[in-house]
């Protein structure tokens, strides 16, 4: 089936938020903190501007608590006299002319009496830098299995390593934006977002309105990647405040520079591994310490950290595991959700470290993985028994065969100024919310039978390019024996759709798709089809029902139920962290130019077992797009920081992969249906970003015989490592 909204996207008719027709509206803009930390001593409005023509909003204008409601309530909607990071919103302006507005923003001066900022999450804060609890730790989590200290003390070989990953900017091509206006006494907010009900929650809380007086509508969203999970609540609040104060519609759309500088990014992380192994390569102990930079507010850091540590030990069997995780408060622009959600950072460290271990033992990295990959019946770090029937070694073997690994590994390296190498990553990704998360969300989907016999799927899960509309259409059509044209998917408008949870965590197809199927079943029960259960019979039954109930609403529903036999303990961090994991083996081939130290990925093989492929084109798109984003993170995407601000908030100096930077990305799927996912599907959206960075760096390690530990591996970094390696080799010879 072709993409349902494809025609609109291909003809320019699709209307993203900035494309919506709007009459008599004001442009909104945000005035931000110039400093990382301190008291706001003055806000000065420059001369030469008639300020009476501008709508001005500050923290005093909030009808409710000055809090962006998320996990915590620590983040203000607008800074009230004190700022905790550069670019923190302080003031809002609106005007009908965008050029005048830009000038006005530049004419406001915010003066801050600076206080000592904490800007490096890796070093313990000095007393004067402490701003959160006793030690700036936003969240501390721990997983413990067996007795790591004892196992390490008796392990024949212990290998240590420290790995670092940088921040990553989402660079969804459509910048963030919102429109707010009043419709009678209902506040309507439309915009680019992944989680309409997060926005509803944030609006009702800070604006002191009930849900009946807030309506949030998602507009076609030009990419999200997690960047439009929590941040849109802030823009929605800002647009709403300006609309409430001015009584006019307000459009608040970021330009790229503002979007890159002020919105969230992937959490930077440092991960330390201490691994005990036998001489033939069996893991006996994994001691792992994860530290992430949370930035100046809690946002989603506790759950990013949680997913990060749960994935940190990799898809391997090991009896003794200890994973200690901390998310640190710093005065950085808050970090937030990004595809992978903590797991890419810990998988990078874990998979890079596996190769370091392999090199130390003189075992081929593929063989080391073969010996340790989880077999059915074995337990993950949280004690979850993996018993899904997937042969994880076979996933790896498939990738090795497709990449022609053995031959390339032996033949590579070459002379001259080019070095070639090949590298592996084997990894997993848990789909859906962690632990009890899905139970707490208690998502609901409705499927309505319409008077003309068609059906309408109502959910709050949104389309951002990944294929929700098409997949839901296909699932409902298949379940009810209808054609795709008999199915409509409702716009994600909170005035109409139930809360089926956020469009995050690779949960939409697997978890919400399953709810679509169950709601379809419920609809069939309700129409009481008397044997005419599906297809044309069902359509006739729906029409009959409406004739018998004029004006009535015929709705089937389903609410999330935890699959049987799943148990999770939030206090001890033990149990079934996820209903299902997707499993993957990725292999990268690289070429390093020794004159420039540039690394080119020349081939990429991505093999994954994802339960069931619901739509081959879309699934492939998720993998290829995710791999591209992962290669960017590994080699190119370098956030440069200066006093807590991103110094390269432009696409000229923050580089993402272009057509010239990417290899062929060869994709293969293996299927082993998951009984509780839609048609057997497991989550896929995030998995592909977990593997590329370690695979690419492992390939560089193979090519040059060095052990790079930090991404992005820019030419400057690689040159330093390679020359240090050469110096060390020289010293050894002498």
């Amino acid at each position, binding site marked *: 089936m072709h993409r349902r909204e494809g025609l609109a996207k291909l003809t320019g008719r699709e209307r993203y938020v900035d494309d919506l027709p709007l009459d008599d509206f004001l442009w909104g803009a945000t005035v931000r903190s110039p400093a990382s930390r301190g008291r706001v001593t003055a806000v000065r409005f420059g001369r030469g501007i008639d300020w009476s023509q501008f709508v001005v909003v500050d923290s005093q204008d909030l009808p409710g608590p000055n809090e962006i409601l998320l996990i915590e309530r620590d983040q203000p909607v607008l800074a009230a006299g004190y700022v905790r990071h550069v670019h923190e919103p302080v003031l809002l302006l609106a005007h009908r002319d965008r*050029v005048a507005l830009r000038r006005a923003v530049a004419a406001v001066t915010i003066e801050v009496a600076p206080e000592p900022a904490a800007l490096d999450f890796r070093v313990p804060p000095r007393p004067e830098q402490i701003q959160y609890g006793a030690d700036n730790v936003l969240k501390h989590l721990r997983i413990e299995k067996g007795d790591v200290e004892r196992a390490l003390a008796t392990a024949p070989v212990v290998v240590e390593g420290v790995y670092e990953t940088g921040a990553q900017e989402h*660079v969804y*091509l459509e910048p963030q934006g919102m429109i707010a206006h009043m419709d009678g006494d209902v506040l309507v907010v439309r915009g680019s977002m992944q989680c309409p009900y997060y926005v509803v929650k944030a609006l009702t809380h800070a604006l002191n309105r009930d849900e009946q007086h807030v309506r949030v509508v998602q507009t076609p969203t030009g990419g999200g990647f997690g960047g439009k999970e929590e941040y849109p609540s802030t823009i929605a609040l800002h647009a709403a405040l300006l609309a409430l104060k001015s009584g006019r519609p307000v459009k608040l759309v970021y330009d*790229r520079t503002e979007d890159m500088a002020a919105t969230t990014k992937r959490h930077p992380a440092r991960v330390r591994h201490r691994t005990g192994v036998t001489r033939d390569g069996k893991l006996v102990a994994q001691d792992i310490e994860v530290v992430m930079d949370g930035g100046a507010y809690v946002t989603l850091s506790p759950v990013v950290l949680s997913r990060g540590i749960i994935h940190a030990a990799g898809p391997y069997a090991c009896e003794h595991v200890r994973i200690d995780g901390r998310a640190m408060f710093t005065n950085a622009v808050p970090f937030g959700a990004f595809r992978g959600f903590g797991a890419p950072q810990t998988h990078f460290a874990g998979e890079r470290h596996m190769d370091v271990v392999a090199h130390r033992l003189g075992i081929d990295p593929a063989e080391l993985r073969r010996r340790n990959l989880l077999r059915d019946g074995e337990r993950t770090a949280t004690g979850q028994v993996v018993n899904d029937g997937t042969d994880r070694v076979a996933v790896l073997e498939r990738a090795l065969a497709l990449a022609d690994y053995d031959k390339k590994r032996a033949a590579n390296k070459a002379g001259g100024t080019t070095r070639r190498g090949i590298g592996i990553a084997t990894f997993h990704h848990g789909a859906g919310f962690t632990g009890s998360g899905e139970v707490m969300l208690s998502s609901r989907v409705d499927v309505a039978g319409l008077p003309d016999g068609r059906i309408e799927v109502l959910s709050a899960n949104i389309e951002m390019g990944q294929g929700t509309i098409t997949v839901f259409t296909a699932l409902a059509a298949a379940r009810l024996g209808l054609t795709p044209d008999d199915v409509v998917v409702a716009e994600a408008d909170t005035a109409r759709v139930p809360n089926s949870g956020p469009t995050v965590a690779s949960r939409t197809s697997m978890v919400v798709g399953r709810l679509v199927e169950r709601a379809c079943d419920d609809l069939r029960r309700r129409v009481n089809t008397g044997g005419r259960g599906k297809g044309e019979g069902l359509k006739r039954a729906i029409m009959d029902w409406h004739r018998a109930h004029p004006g009535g609403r015929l709705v089937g529903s389903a609410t999330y139920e935890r699959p049987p036999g799943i148990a999770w303990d939030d206090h001890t961090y033990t149990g079934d962290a996820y209903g299902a994991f997707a499993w993957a083996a990725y292999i990268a081939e690289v070429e390093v130019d020794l004159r420039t130290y540039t690394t080119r990925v020349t081939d990429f093989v991505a093999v994954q077992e994802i339960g069931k492929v619901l739509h081959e084109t879309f699934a492939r798109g998720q993998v290829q*797009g995710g791999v591209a984003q992962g290669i960017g993170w590994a080699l190119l995407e370098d956030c440069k920081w200066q006093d807590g601000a991103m110094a390269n908030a432009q696409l000229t100096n923050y580089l993402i992969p*272009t057509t*010239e930077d990417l290899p062929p990305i060869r994709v*293969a799927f293996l299927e082993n249906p998951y009984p509780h996912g839609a048609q057997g599907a497991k989550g896929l959206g995030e998995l592909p970003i977990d593997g590329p960075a370690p695979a690419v760096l492992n390939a560089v390690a193979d090519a040059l015989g060095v052990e790079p530990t930090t991404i992005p591996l820019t030419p400057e970094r690689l040159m330093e490592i390679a020359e240090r390696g050469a110096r060390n080799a020289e010293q050894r010879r002498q």
Partner: protein
Amino acid sequence: MPDPKATISFELNGEPATLAFAPHKTLLEVLREDAGLTGTKHGCELGECGTCTVLLDGTPVLSCLLLGLACAGHRVTTVEGMAAGGRLHPLQDAFAELGAAQCGYCTPAFLLAAQALLAVEPRPSRAAIKQALAGNLCRCTGYLKIYEAVELAAARLRGEDATPARETLYGHA
């Protein structure tokens, strides 16, 4: 004081057009705000992302860097002008069939850049396609489906009876 308006005449998607707008406006702004054609998107407005690509006399240009005034007397093509007489351009068909548009935000620009390429190079190599599209960013697809769609459309435009490439190299098992 708002700038007084300037008026220009040019050819827009095959039709003569006369528009009045503030003279400082970029072609991007003129198209979106004064011509009401929002199919042309913006991703940076600094000439960095290619999202605002349109064709000026058949050649791809970044509409965010060009003044609207500079188009007087020229031919401008936007994505809205690609489908002729109610029929999709073969590139649009191929993009639909192969799923080359995901979020779709970059798509109008890719379609136009590809159209310009095929006009001068009916049988482009993969390398030529990559080069022609190197100024256009896409964050969703990893570009591969886009190349395949361009190749499929090129074959059809040459009159060859092309079938879509296999969706994945290895399918699934």
